[in-house]
């Protein structure tokens, strides 16, 4: 279990994490989403021991992360800008990782050779961005970590390889109980793999729930009011739009509760439509003054 409690991290007066609190249950895939500059990468760097938080606690399995060599041998990370030694080949990096991670499995490394079609002896710098990302996954998954921390992990991968690496990651989650914390802007993808989601904004976690709870807590309704009327002002909606007589309303409540509320106005039609994670993200952050603005240029 990953626990982040009231964590603060400042850079030269700028507060990147401002009392961040979140909890990643063991064995789950936790999607960390948020706008640019929300503090996702900073939080990940704190969790992997790169940065030391100024305040608060960061713990994995109840142990502090900072300078905890034993704990970190169970945690593997893929940064959005994964680093390799300039002259190194995949094989060189494999030897390097193997020296650091006691659980590094050469057997798995050899097996993964079938999936990642990369020349092991070729210098990594000569590989494409996508192939470098594949190399990162190859090494990281071979390290057999209990905790996998991924920052924009599938950027640069083609759709087939995206599915492939997610399949490998989810396989580890299912078979070995690996806990995955993943930060991404690709919400469509996260929706498919995450069972928990946390939304970070301005260094604070706006909400964190299981995906099911999240979808249960917000509803999208298509409504047609009687006599072509508009959305009643006393109806608390996050967002409203209309095409002809059909109004689309986003409301922060369960579908049943929303339908009960609308029943007062005797609408001609009420239909609940499932919300995507992207829509939840947009409308949640819309409440936090981060929404798509209509600007005429």
């Amino acid at each position, binding site marked *: 279990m990953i626990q982040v409690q009231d964590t603060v991290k400042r850079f030269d007066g700028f507060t990147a994490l401002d009392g961040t609190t979140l909890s990643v249950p063991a064995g789950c895939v936790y999607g960390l989403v948020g706008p640019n500059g929300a503090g996702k990468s900073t939080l990940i760097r704190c969790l992997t021991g790169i940065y030391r938080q100024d305040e608060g606690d960061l713990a994995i399995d109840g142990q502090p992360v900072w300078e905890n*060599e034993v704990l970190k041998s169970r945690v593997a990370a893929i940064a959005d800008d994964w680093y390799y030694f300039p002259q190194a080949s995949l094989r060189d990096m494999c030897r390097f990782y193997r020296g650091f991670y006691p659980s590094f499995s050469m057997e798995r490394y050899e097996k993964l050779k079938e999936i990642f079609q990369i020349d092991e002896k070729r210098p990594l710098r000569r590989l494409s961005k996508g192939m470098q990302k594949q190399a990162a996954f190859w090494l990281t998954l071979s390290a057999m970590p209990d905790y996998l921390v991924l920052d924009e992990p599938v950027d640069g991968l083609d759709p087939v390889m995206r599915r492939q690496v997610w399949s490998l990651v989810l396989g580890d989650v299912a078979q070995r109980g690996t806990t995955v914390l993943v930060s991404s802007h690709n919400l469509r993808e996260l929706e498919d793999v995450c069972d928990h989601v946390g939304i970070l904004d301005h260094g604070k976690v706006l909400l964190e729930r299981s995906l099911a709870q999240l979808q249960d807590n917000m509803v999208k309704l298509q409504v047609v009011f009687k006599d072509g009327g508009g959305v009643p002002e006393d109806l608390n909606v996050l967002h409203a739009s209309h095409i002809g007589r059909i109004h689309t309303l986003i409301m922060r409540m369960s579908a049943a509760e929303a339908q009960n509320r609308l029943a007062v106005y005797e609408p001609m039609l009420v239909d609940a439509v499932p919300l995507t994670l992207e829509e939840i993200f947009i409308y949640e952050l819309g409440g936090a003054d981060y929404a798509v603005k209509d600007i005429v240029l």
Partner: protein
Amino acid sequence: MRSKTSYFNPTLFKKNLTRFWPLWGGASALGALIPLALFMILVEDRFAGFGGHPLEFTHSCYVALCYFVPTISLLYAALCALAVWGWLYNPRSVGMMHSLPVTRKGLFVTNALSGLSMMLIPYAVTGALVILVSLVFGLFEPVGILVTILGVLADSFFYFASATLVVFLTGNPFAFAAFYFIFHFLATGAEWLVSQLMAAFYFGVGFVNEGVIEFLSPTIYLTRRLHPDVTYQTTSTPDGWIDNGVPTAVELSNGYLLLVYALVGAVLLALAWALYRRRRSESAGDVVAVGWMKPIFRYGVALCAAAAGGILLYGVLFSSLESGSIANPVYMATCMAVAGVVGYYIASMLLVKSLRVFQNSLPGALATAAAALILCFTVAADPAGVESWLPEADSLESLSLYVSGPYGRSLGATLADKATIQKVLDCQAAIIAEKDVLDDSRGEKHYAHVYLTYRQNGRRTAWRSYDLRFTPELLEESDALIRLQGVLTDPVVQEDNIFGILSHPFGYSDDLQNEIRLTGGYVGDVYDTQTQEIYGSDLLPEQAKALETAVRRDIQAGHFGKTVLLTNLMPDENAYHNIAYFGDLTLNYTVTKLEEGKHRTYSRTVSFGISVYCTETVKALEDMGVLDGTHKLLTMAEHGAQQAQQYPSDVPYDSPSDGPYVSAGSAVVYPEEAMHGPA
């Protein structure tokens, strides 16, 4: 559970060595050239019949340790430190290294050991081959080798530790290079800057390199203080000359300094570790990686820019307005303030890695300008009285005087007689009092250069250097110049000027009693009016003795030293050339020195020029028949005319080496003051 942390990571160590093998491999290959060259030299020597001696070999090792290892280590340590710590300068690599399951202590220890290994491998390769060569040629000397190895270890450790500390102070390789250089030469540079500023305002005060804080510049300090001392075997030969080819002992003088610097290295490494513990990974790429260092950097750069830039700016813009060598404080202060503010903004730009530093920066810039103004006016006011400082004659062990005139005719003497020293100090006091007149570049004039060195307890303690403007009128009116002429013709001064080498034939630190014998002499450039040829004439010992006596009589009469301040501004426009003789006179001596119960004999030669004022000397030469009606000495002017007549196409030359000089053996040795004159 939190256990089993390791301070050494073999994977990282191996990776470092394999990644950077071209660095230490290349250095090893270069190092291996030294024993190879040594081998070739020794083979050649063997063929030539020279056997060599183990102590000579040790001496060579010590020479390398004293003069080459510090400089090589200074540069090579920077490369090794950059190799093993370079990842700290890249945010991506910092992220990767710090996310690995290894503590910072583990990273520090492993990288430090990797870097030290890279430092030592080339030395080990070179040392092993050198030992092999010494064994092959029977020159192996275990003590010398052991001392050299320990010295190299100490040097390497210190320099690598210093480079490591600088790595943790900085955030990018360019800043590292600059800071590393500053770290090692800041003390000398600061001393130079301060003395330059003082020289700009104080008459007679110039660059000071007394090395008061030189120990803070280890490379300079080590190469100056560390040196091998060799003791040679002495053997009597039938004709009394001593052969001294075989060394009996070689010692490393001030070798303890290496141990001291190694201990300092340990402290620096501990400081580096302390900085690393507090270092923020996000500082990668910054110029200064440590928060509290930033204001020090900002205002340090500003201050240095104020001093160096101010002097430079003043030299470019205002030096032509000066009437003398002293800078105008108002102009200088303006230049320093401007340069200081520029330095302040440059430092600010480097710190924030942006050109947009002007907002809210006015207080800092004003503070810098104010500090520059205060510094300038404080130095100009000379609160410590540096310019007017005169030592007490009784406090001096000796005073060295060097005076040169417009034609190169010069005088050099080292005085221990208190009365004569006081006479020189009185002259100096008069020079300072008349600085407004004598330090004036306006109008037609000539300059006399006066250089004084005060010694206390056997070491140089201070010096002053004056360029004095003089004209025929000033020579008669100026108290300082009148006193200077008195000093130039003073018998004690001239005695040391001409015969000083006999008082201290082995330097001023040698207080042994020596036996001196006059063996002959030589009169150069005698002109035969009948054949119109110029020739030299050897003197027998008795003739040389007569010449020596006559010279001393001329010295006592004050006939020597009168030509130093002759100029073409005199009523006789060609005064100097009409008065100074062209040829030099030479007296040859042997000096027998008692060393370790045995006598060693050395040759010493005294050579000097004379003028028409030296009547006693000329008379003595006439009495011994060297000069007569048809054989005479030519003045400069006569010699020029004779040469022009004999070689019409040649341009008559103006001045040969007409200053008094002495020679030791065949090598010409100018008076010490000439060697130590201001750069």
